[in-house]
């Protein structure tokens, strides 16, 4: 019985189909969730995909966070439901205060699309169990407002409690404080990532398959069994 993973579509979501593909490739059952209904249709986890919800005109994720489905996601997340926010999804999680800090305009004020080298700093989350600490990954990064910022206290706290999950290697692509590319909450069930693991699940269309294990970690399936 495959794990049911919900993928939310907001108006302006773009990588929702890709997140669903990644869930399928990881042996899960991808369940589309619409921003306007509060029902989570008893999914075992939720992905907030990348995109430009409501155009991201005001602040990325600022408007999406108020949609009915988010009310349900926020409650469920507080009760431990695994939630993964990718790019715009990460921004929504920050706006919804499920994760600390915020994401602002890239330092060079340009949208950046590149294959980004990352290091896994912590694996204590249902989304990262399949990785090794210190492991290096290459995953697409594509964002204009991807610079993670927070006050020093928050940053120190994130470091001290091992909640910095992935860090940028090489040149910092967007000015993120402390090269932060992804963080998790205290409980570990909520993960925010700026890079797009769902675009690194097939060698044919991505830099490789380094991203697949974020999804495999959740579904518990094993990569070998699934390679197509």
């Amino acid at each position, binding site marked *: 019985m495959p794990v049911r993973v919900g993928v939310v579509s907001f108006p302006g979501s773009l990588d929702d189909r890709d997140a669903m593909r990644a869930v399928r490739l990881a042996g899960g059952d991808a369940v589309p969730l619409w921003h306007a209904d509060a029902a989570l249709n008893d999914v075992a986890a939720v992905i907030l995909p990348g995109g430009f919800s409501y155009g991201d*005109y005001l602040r990325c994720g600022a408007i999406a966070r108020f949609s009915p489905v988010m009310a349900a996601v926020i409650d469920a997340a507080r009760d431990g439901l695994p939630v993964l926010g990718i790019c715009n999804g990460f921004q929504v999680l920050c706006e919804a205060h499920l994760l600390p800090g915020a994401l602002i305009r890239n330092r060079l004020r340009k949208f950046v699309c590149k294959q980004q080298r990352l290091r896994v700093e912590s694996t204590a989350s249902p989304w990262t169990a399949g990785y090794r600490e210190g492991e290096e990954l290459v995953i697409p990064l594509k964002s204009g407002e991807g610079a993670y910022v927070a006050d020093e206290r928050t940053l120190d706290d994130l470091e001290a409690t091992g909640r910095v999950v992935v860090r940028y290697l090489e040149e910092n692509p967007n000015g993120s404080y402390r090269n932060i590319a992804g963080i998790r909450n205290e409980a570990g069930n909520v993960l925010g990532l700026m890079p797009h693991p769902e675009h690194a699940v097939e060698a044919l269309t991505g830099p490789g398959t380094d991203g697949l294990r974020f999804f495999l970690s959740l579904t518990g399936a094993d990569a070998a069994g699934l390679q197509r």
Partner: protein
Amino acid sequence: MARVVVDVVLKPEILDPQGQAIVGALDRLGIAGVSDVRQGKHFELEVEDSVDDDALTELADTLLANPVIENFTIHR
């Protein structure tokens, strides 16, 4: 040294998608009483007193605003 504020807003006839997005959100949030929103830019400059108004206007016109679609006001 003085703090000078320059506000840049889209010309009234120019479409403002950002403002529209906010108006839409207000409806969904059930916030009543706000009929229209326009979003612009707000600049705070630390300026030496030697810099005169013409220089500021020049600066706003070339760097801070896009005269093709935006107007600006300077508060000294």
